[in-house]
Each structure stands twice: as C-alpha cells, then as structure tokens.
C-alpha cells in the first residue's frame, strides 16, 4: 500500500467521522431559544391592569351573567400555547418551545410566548397569508401582471415591522408602479380581468366589492346589480336606516376609474373620463361620479386623486367599519370564530358586541397597532378560558364566549402541525434550509390533497372521507414518521425512560402530557421492545396521536 492510499483511507475515515459527529450533534442538540426583545418579565400585572382587557372581560361576563350563564375555568398554559401557536404561526408549539417555556416564570409565560411569536418570522408569514386571502384571494390571477407571492412577502414584511394597519392599507390602495418592484400594486393587477376585447385595466367593479369586503368588512356585492329591496343592506344608521342603492356600489367603483395599467405599471390618469355604468332602471350608460357609500362627512371631496381620496376615507380613524373589520378578523384568527360572523359581513348599523367596540376604540387609540391588538386579546380571560367546563355547555355558552370555542384546524394548520410535531426543534427561520424547504413542499402537497378552503376563512367545515384517508395513509405522515432524522429516532435514542418517551410524543403532537390511563397503556406496549421494534412502536404512537380527534381540533 502506498502512502497515497493511506492518505486516501485516512481522509475517508475522517469524512465518515465528521458526518457521524454532525448527525450526533443534530440528534442530541439542545439549543436555547433566543429571548424575545419585546418581553419584559413581570409585565403580566401591568397588562392585566389594562382597562381594555378588564373592560372586555367585564362586558362578556356581564352579558353572560344577565343570561344566567356561568363561565368556564382558566385553560392550562400548554393549551394556551397551543392556541397561540396555531393562531399566529399555523403550527403546534415545538417541544423545544415548550421546554423553554418551563424556564420562564409561570406568571410571565403567556406574555413571553406572545412576544416570542410576534418576533418570529413564522408569525408574520402566516398572518400575511391569512390576510392576503381576503385582500387578493387565492387564485393565480392574471398571468404576467400579478405576483401573489410578492404581495404576500411584502405584507409579511409590513406585519413583521408592525407597520400601523391604516398606513399599510393606505399604501395598498394608493401605490403606483410595477407589480414586481411595488408589490402592493398587486392588489390592482389581481383585479385585471384579462379579456382579448378589453384594455387590461383593473376592473372598478371587482375593486369596489373587494375593497368593501377586505377593508370595511362589508359585502355589498348585491348592490352591483340592484338596489337593496329586501332590507338587508342598510347604509344608514340603526336610527335612520338608508337602503343601499345600486348607485352606491357604482359610486364606490367610480373611485377606481382613474387607475391605469401600462408599461410603467399601475398609475392614475387624473384626466380620465368619469366612470360610466348603465344602472338597472336606466336605458343608457351614464356618468357616475365618485362618492363614498356612508360616513360622507369623512370624505374630502376636494382631493383630485380618487384613489388617495378613497384611501383617506377608508382608513380615517373615525371610519369605524375599517377598524371594526380588522379587529373582528384578528379575533377570528385567534378564536377560530369572529365576534360577528361572517367576518366580512359586518352590518353598518349594528348591533355590535360591546367587546368588539372596546377593542376597536383601543385599536384606534393605539394607532392601529396590530401587535398590541393581538397581545390585548391574548391577555384577556376570555381567550384564556378553557373549552371545557364543570357545567353542561350549551350553544348559548359557546356563542356568549363562556368557554373557548372549539374549531376544526384549517388544512394548513393540520399540515403545519404534522410537520412541526415530527421535529422536536422549532422549524422557524433559523432552522436548516432543508428542513424549511421540506416543510414548504410537504405542506403544499398536503393542503392540495386535503383541499384548500380558499377565501372561506372561517366556515364550519366537516371532515371528508378523502381527508381521513390522507391522515390514515397519506405520504406526508408516512414520510415524516419514516425519516430517521426526525423526532421518532431522536426520542428513541435520547429518552431517559419509556415514560419520558411517551410524554415527549404527547407533548409534540397534542401539546399535553398523557393522563395515567394513556401513559400506562403506551408504556406497557413499549416495555418488552428494543431497537427497531421500539422505534416502530414510537412511530405507531405518533401516528395514533396525529390521527386522534384531539389533534384535529383547536380547543
């Protein structure tokens, strides 16, 4: 053997040892989570003293008391972590996060976790996708001129920086430029209806309906074709009702008549002709000047740029439907159900739940601060109530928020939870790029097969046979559990006891420890097994918990 061969052997050996060392480090790593900068220990009492949180809880409790209904007891910390993580990142909390939480003072844990999530890119990425669904929908939109992913990424940046919501919406409604360089203008290019006969101009009618639903929480689409002749669309107040007119819808559409799309992207042609439409009772096209449908005293009619004029009116701090719409939506994201349902059909004339109005006032006072709104809701007793109770829970209790409402996980939450639960470490922006890529690919594949509800954000959905088959036999769960670099092998390798192994799988999948019956049942099964058999049994336990009813519900 020559010295060259020796050198080759030593090189090969060192490469193998390095690889083994890298895998070992990966399997046994116990990295600490970075402390959130927004978190200050001991601030729970300060938030609790927040008059809005107290008033919100008091208003809900007063309503329940008036109806003779009790409230439930507080939920456990792990249940709260699960709710918060699902709402703000679309996944379960990782075992790593739950272990880190144990090092935080109990009184600070909710605050710590909310701060941790709000500073995590996963949160802004997830919320931007949820918000984008109502702003631009889920369809691919017009080819070439629309880039949904750019819009969602831009929105995520804004949410990550906690840009005031009114500023953010103002930019969406007024931005100029090319859809790639000025991602906000995708709001307009999405509403271009490609037609070989028409100029490719954003459609004022679609924009009117979309703007009303997305930013004012009102479905006024019926008025596109006819006046409200059945009394469901009041554009006045409760005291002075004013039936919505077809003219109201098209006067709103008229605000978008100056928007052009050209080689320089979206811009305004301030000299363009007034919007024209043939109303139902008319026999000809007629010019329809821009006019806001309600709260007209907030509209500055002297502004020549119609989009700017509309944006100023929509986001005006006294235009309550604007703030009400996003407060109700954020509440719905956190609870799974809005204070008013459907979330994008809030009546102008009420009645409004007092809790909603309190949050709206607070949101406006705090300069449309979304992070503050999320922290306020998370801090309330209402959010922190258990979904169980020691009394018979009726529909009245649920609708009155006496208990936390139980809702089925959304498809991307199921997918995200499967993927996160099979990794003990958090799959966040600091995770290995391969882990994140795998998560992205597997999540999309799973949601595609499971069925994406699209813009139906908060509908009551029932499980289908196809979805159950996907959970029982689908490739996502099979691949996640079969990959020895994921949690199954790691739990088998490093758990100090069988009890600890079972507990870790429960924490990873259901965010709780097993009860005695469950613990005994699964420990007994693992007891006689060793090596691969024990690993397979842990894999089966994972499969069981992922397929359990509990896994599929936010509670």
């Amino acid at each position, binding site marked *: 053997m020559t010295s060259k061969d020796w050198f080759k052997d030593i090189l090969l050996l060192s490469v193998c040892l390095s690889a083994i060392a890298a895998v070992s480090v990966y399997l046994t790593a116990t990295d600490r989570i970075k402390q959130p900068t927004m978190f200050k220990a001991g601030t729970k009492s300060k938030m609790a003293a927040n008059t809005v949180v107290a008033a919100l809880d008091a208003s809900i409790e007063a309503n329940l008391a008036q109806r003779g209904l009790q409230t439930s007891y507080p939920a456990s910390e792990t249940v709260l972590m699960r709710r918060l993580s699902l709402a703000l990142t679309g996944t379960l909390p990782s075992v790593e996060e739950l272990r880190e939480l144990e090092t935080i003072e109990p009184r600070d844990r909710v605050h710590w976790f909310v701060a941790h999530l709000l500073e995590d890119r996963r949160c802004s990425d997830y919320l931007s996708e949820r918000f984008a669904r109502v702003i631009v929908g889920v369809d691919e939109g017009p080819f070439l001129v629309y880039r949904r992913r750019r819009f969602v990424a831009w929105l995520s940046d804004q949410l990550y920086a906690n840009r005031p919501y009114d500023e953010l919406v103002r930019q969406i409604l007024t931005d100029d430029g090319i859809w790639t360089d000025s991602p906000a203008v995708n709001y307009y290019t999405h509403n271009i209806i490609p037609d070989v006969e028409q100029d490719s101009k954003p459609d004022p009618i679609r924009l009117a309906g979309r703007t009303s639903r997305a930013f004012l929480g009102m479905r006024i689409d019926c008025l596109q074709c006819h006046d409200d002749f*059945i009394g*469901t669309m009041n554009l006045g107040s409760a005291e002075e009702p004013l039936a919505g007119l077809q003219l109201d819808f098209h006067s709103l559409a008229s605000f978008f008549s100056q928007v052009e799309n050209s080689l320089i992207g979206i811009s305004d042609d301030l000299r363009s002709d007034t919007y024209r439409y043939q109303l139902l009772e008319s026999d000809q096209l007629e010019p329809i000047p821009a006019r806001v449908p309600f709260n007209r005293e907030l509209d500055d009619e002297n502004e020549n740029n119609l989009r700017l004029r509309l944006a100023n009116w929509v986001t005006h701090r006294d235009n309550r439907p604007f703030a009400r719409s996003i407060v109700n939506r954020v509440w719905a994201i956190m609870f799974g159900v809005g204070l008013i349902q459907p979330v994008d059909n809030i009546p102008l004339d009420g009645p409004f739940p007092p809790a909603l109005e309190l949050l709206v006032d607070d949101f406006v006072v705090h300069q449309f601060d979304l992070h503050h709104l999320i922290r306020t809701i998370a801090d309330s007793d209402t959010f922190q109530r258990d979904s*169980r109770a020691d009394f*018979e829970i009726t529909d009245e209790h649920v609708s009155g928020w006496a*208990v936390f409402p139980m809702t089925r996980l959304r498809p991307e939450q199921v997918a995200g939870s499967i993927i996160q639960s099979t990794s003990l470490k958090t799959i966040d922006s600091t995770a290995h790029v391969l882990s994140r890529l795998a998560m992205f690919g597997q999540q999309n594949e799973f949601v595609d097969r499971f069925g994406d509800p699209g813009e139906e954000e908060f509908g009551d959905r029932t499980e289908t*046979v196809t*979805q159950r*088959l996907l959970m029982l036999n689908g*490739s996502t769960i099979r691949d996640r559990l079969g990959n020895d670099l994921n949690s199954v092998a790691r739990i088998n390798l490093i758990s100090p006891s069988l009890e600890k192994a079972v507990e870790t799988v429960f924490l990873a999948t259901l965010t709780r420890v097993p009860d005695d019956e469950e613990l005994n049942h699964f420990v007994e099964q693992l007891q006689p097994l060793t090596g691969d058999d024990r690993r397979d049994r842990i894999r089966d336990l994972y499969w069981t918990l992922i397929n359990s009813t509990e896994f599929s519900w936010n509670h």
Partner: protein
Amino acid sequence: MMLSEFAYSCQSLEHVQRRTFLQIAGAGGLSLLTPVASALARRHDDRKVESAKSLIVLWLEGAPSQLETFDPHPGTAIAAGSKARRTNVEGIRLGEGFEQLADQMDSVSIVRALTSKEGDHARAMYNIKTGFRPDPTLIHPAIGSVICHQTISADSQVIDIPRHISILPGSAPGRGGYLGDRFDAFKIGDPRDPVPDIESPVDRQRQLQRIADLNVVDRSFRSRYQNHSAMRDKLGHHNLDAALTMMSSEQLDAFNVTTVPVALRNEYGDTPFGRGCLAAVRLIHAGVRCVEVTLGGWDTHINNHELQAGRIGILDPAFAAMIRELKSRKLLDSTIVVCGGEFGRTPFMNAAGGRDHWPHGFSIAMAGGGIQGGRVIGETNPDPKPDAAAKLANLKDAHPVEDIHATILQAMNIDLQQELDTPVGRPMKINEGKPIQQLLDA
C-alpha cells in the same frame, strides 16, 4: 353575542317566502299555475323516464384548437394548412388526426359555436367547469359536484368509493365549492400506479393495533367533553369507518387497469390519458357518478399544428375506445361523455406559428346519456370578421358555455329551476343556461 350567520346574508325573508311559495305550489300539484304554464310543466314531466346517470369529462386543459379538432375549415385561410377527414356521418368532418373517432361519429355530436367571456385560462376553466363566471364572494361547484349532490340519497348505500373522481388532475380539478368539501373530486394519478392514500403504510396487525390505540386516545378526549352538548356529536371519527370500508372495498378494483387484457388497453393507447379513460369506464360501471380525465398540453401559442397533432394522437384512440366500450357494456345510454377545453384558439396564426386564446366560437364534443349522435350544433364563419364588435356575428346558433351544463343536467333529469343554498343561506341558481334541445330531441 356572537351574531347569527343568517342575520346579514342575502337569505332574505323575501327569498325564503318566494321559495316557500314555489314549494307549496309544487306540493299543490301546480294548481296555482296558469293553463299554459301547467302544460309546459307537464311537458317537462313527460320527458323520457330513462335519464343519464353518469358523466365522463375528457378535459383538454390548455384549450384545444377547434380548427384542428372538432371544427375544421380545410382549404380556407383560417385553416392555415390544416386538413380534415370524413366521418361515418355524411357532412361531418373532424381534424385529420381523428382516425378512430371518425368511425364513432354517429354516436357523437359537436357544439361548434360555443362562447364565453373569459379569455384567461384560470377564469375560463372555472367558467366552463362550473357554468358560472368567477365570483369573488363564493366558489361555485363543478358540474360533477352538482351531480353528486343531486344524487346523494340514491347512492348512499350503493358505493364505497368516491363518486366524483379526477384522474390526472390538472390545475383545477372539480371542487364542491359552496356545496362543501365532500363533493370535491377524489384525485388520482396514472391508473397504472396505486390509488393514493388507500394502502395502509403498515401491515394488517399493526394497523389494527393503531386503530385500537386511537380508540384509547379518543375515548379520553371525548370523556373530557361529555358535558359539552354543543360539541359532543361533532367530536369523533365519523368518517373512519367509511375510510376503512373504502380501503378494503372490492370496488377499488375499478381503479386497477393492470388486469385489463393487453389488447383492450392498447385500443385506448399506452398513455396515462388512455389508461385514465380505461379506468373511467370501469369506475362508471362500478357506480361512480362523475369521472374527469385530463389531457393537458393544448396551449399552443407556438408551433400550433405540430403540438395539436401530438395531443390529438393521444386523444383520438382513447376517446374512440371509450365510446366503443361504453356501447359494448351497454353504458353509453346512461353515461354522458363531454370532451373539450376552456376555450378555443384564434382563427389566425401568430408570428410563432401558434394560435392564441379564442372564446368567441369554439367546440365541444358530447355523446351518450340521451345526447343524440351525429349532430352538429352551431356554425363558425370560415371568413370571420376581425373587429371586436362583430365577433358574435361570425357565429350561427351560438351557445354560451352554461348551456352545456343545462343540457347535461336536463339529460340527467335534474331540476334546472332549483336553487341551492350556500353555507350562509344565499340561494343560488343551479344553472343559468338553457338546454340545447337539438342535442336531446330524438
């Protein structure tokens, strides 16, 4: 405090009253209708009792060129050199690649002057699959979902496997839309491969142990919500039994084309689409209501003639073999076959030798289930006027795409006048078209 979904929806009192009135009128034997209306209603009721039961959609995603497929104009400028071939029906010609379908033309009819207002793929696909233009406020159900919704009570005890199936799903497989996810198409790939999500990833013994363990965990969860009367009935695995039944159902054999004699398989063509069509016939025979088989690659903005010919080479044997086999199995009378894409292609060539999008007069082929064969409905002008305003003037007996839906629903004896409820109680027309009677009248 949490306000009702129904409080602010379009589910108005007037809507309810109007519908209730119609229901009462129906229950009262139409006695409230005028004599003319009664006569029309009787005519409707007197339609032949035998109606179509199933639908196969041969979905040509990307939009085929009508000039190279079902509406050739050989020898004209718009043909740009494309040729045509005779069929077994005098006067009907197809694009030159349809050698086998030409012999089945007496069973197939063509609608040649279809129109839509959608020239974008995604919007046009939505339009032609649902019969409605995209509406940002809701998602309409695809035709297969509507059919499954309308036949659910008849099928509930009959079939273990999904009733709505999409083979080789393209970018827009049939969705249940506002009818719900359960009417979504079940998606499978090339029938040569195993059906997705049907095989347990572990052996039988381990699977049984997993299910037994599942009961332990579920029992624990349900016990914690025993006093939750609002949720009690919703918690649990309501579809576990149905899923397990499907996993062991003999009807799954219908997906398996590997046991079909080679000679028959070869008739369909040794392609994923051919195998998809082969499986579609077996699935219909097993009781499935709607099967969609996708053949993509028709979006020929460049090199139109060559690319269209390649697709036709795959479509022709499969379509023709499907018609032959449905006939031999005596299923053609109860199965509608529809073949087409989201729009047509321009009657002029672009600089790259391609044809662009053209929703102003395109074609769809239909057969079976009461659709008469050997007929051509509508006509396109071989010398079309190019200006936008005159585009419809290029057509004779034009039909919008929703008329195809109306024709299918009528052939299936589904009430075209009914309204379906969205989840928020908004009543929606099941269809906004008119049946193409020339296709249905004997």
